[in-house]
């Protein structure tokens, strides 16, 4: 019994101090205005301000687009990857870029996308002329998708790899062609991976602020950017916390939507 308590203390302390307390605090803080007085004004402000509402809608819309782009690129990647010999090695190569500091990868795109950068040099070379690439919505989404691709490929790859190959044989044996086998067997069975991937990409995409600053050039304001601004620039912690609470709500909604509702069918592995 004593041994159990010995294990329990540090971990329980961590849960209380660093999991529960901060969440409670951010909720608590959201009820105070910039002068430290208790108020519901932050929520009223948020719900009535067209700026905040538009920002939320934009943020969700961009996160949706980023997730969609990432999914469209990642699913075929995971699918092809899964059919290669030495697939674990190739998967490792997909994951390797995630081990490189996020800031460095973003920094690389500043150089690539700049007015005189490599992409524009290439565009001029093929006769398309140079364009403003940096500080555009498209470049913001591209870099965000670039960073998220491995996090989408991994869960999809895993769920594809888990599919028993004899299920695919069975499908063909029962008369299905390749496309029918894909839509009726492979896709439904890989859905848990797709959902996990969406979760892993959508939530961070809502809260990105570093990429919006460096690549998006403050054109795109996400929920994350707004929180950062309120906390570190305008010092209006109450409003920042309010947006934080909204972000947490959004997170729960995403998890509820992508969560495995059909638990009964979840753990099938034969």
């Amino acid at each position, binding site marked *: 019994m004593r041994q159990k308590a010995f294990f329990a203390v540090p971990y329980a302390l961590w849960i209380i101090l660093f999991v529960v307390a901060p969440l409670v605090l951010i909720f608590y803080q959201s009820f105070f205005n910039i002068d430290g007085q208790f108020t519901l004004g932050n929520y009223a402000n948020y719900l009535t301000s067209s700026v905040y509402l538009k920002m939320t809608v934009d943020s969700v819309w961009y996160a949706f687009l980023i997730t969609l782009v990432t999914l469209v690129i990642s699913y075929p990647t995971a699918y092809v990857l899964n059919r290669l010999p030495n697939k674990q090695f190739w998967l490792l190569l997909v994951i390797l870029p995630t081990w490189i500091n996020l800031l460095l990868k973003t920094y690389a795109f500043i150089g690539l996308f700049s007015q005189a950068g490599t992409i524009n040099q290439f565009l001029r070379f093929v006769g398309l002329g140079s364009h403003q690439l940096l500080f555009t919505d498209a470049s913001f989404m591209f870099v965000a998708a670039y960073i998220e691709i491995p996090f989408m490929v991994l869960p999809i790859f895993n769920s594809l790899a888990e599919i028993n190959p004899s*299920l695919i044989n*069975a499908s063909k044996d029962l008369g299905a062609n390749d496309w029918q086998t894909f839509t009726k067997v492979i896709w439904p069975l890989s859905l848990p991976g797709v959902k996990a991937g969406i979760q892993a990409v959508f939530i961070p995409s809502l809260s990105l602020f570093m990429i919006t600053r460096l690549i998006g050039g403050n054109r795109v304001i996400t929920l994350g950017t707004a929180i950062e601004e309120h906390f570190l620039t305008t010092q209006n912690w109450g409003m920042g916390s309010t947006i934080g609470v909204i972000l947490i709500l959004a997170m729960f909604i995403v998890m509820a939507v992508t969560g495995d509702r059909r638990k009964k069918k979840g753990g099938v592995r034969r």
Partner: protein
Amino acid sequence: MEFHHVERRFGDNVVLKDIDFAIEAGKFYTLLGPSGSGKTTILRLIAGFNSPTSGEIDFDGKRINDVPANRRQVNTVFQDYALFPHMNVAENVAFGLQIKGVGKQETAKRVKEALHLVQLDGYGEREITEMSGGQRQRVAIARALVNRPKLLLLDEALSALDHKLRVEMQTELRQLQRQLGITFIFVTHDQEEALAMSDQIMIINDGTIQQSGTPVDIYDEPLNHFVADFIGESNIVPGIMKADYLVTIDGQDFECVDAGMRPNERVEVVIRPEDLDITTVEKGQLAVTVDTQLFRGVDYQITAHDQRNHEWKINSIHKTTVGATVGLAFDPEDIHVMRYNESEEDFDARLDSYEEDE
């Protein structure tokens, strides 16, 4: 379904060499062999998951080497059942019909029939995870049969079941096959299963068909050492064929029923353990000393050795004593003589030649 000189290689590895056979409609065939013998490869060639490296596979007189699996009138019951985990029982069974575009009502009707056939009435809405191993097996069979295939392939289909359930399913499968008149091709490494269920058995080893025939033929007249050893238990001892109907084992002459060999040809002699009777030394043709005795319920399994240290396996319903010297008695019909390296055709021809004489 016919195979003509089919060969299959994986890289340099020859898995099947010169496979040649024809399958008659409406019979129960079994491909029997140890693991790695190539029997599953034959099944995959029939199903269309692989194509032969050389040779020809015909179906209804048409070459089907390159017809993909989804366009063959062949369905498979997989070893691990391969039931779709995201569909319930009825959806699994309906899969093949939906692919073919069979109408909703017709599909529902045929699914119901198929589930009835495998005694799973009312299980349609169950999830696969809720089904036991034996029930999953039945779903897999129903899913294949509902398509009304001309040929049903069963790949080690019973190997995941426990012994009792397996014996039950053997009987059921056999009945199902008779009832429907569909050709079944069953792959197994279990010789008892093969003997119990089949009209025809093909024994596969090292990528070739060693012998094919009815269970009784194969059991009573194994072609070579491998078959004799693989099917049932056997005592195999070297001998010399002195003349027709006379074989010598260790210098002792025995009357037998085999003929058609060269005088003094070296042969192998097979005697099944259940054909050996234990008697007194005087009455027996052979004297042996009992080494071990195991009670197996129906009989005793006894091992013994003779003066020249050949080991003998005996199955006897009577008890004996370990260490005792006893006599072994057997009839001429119990002796089966095998020639070295005789092909199946030569074997059949030789049998015909002297059986006609009688």
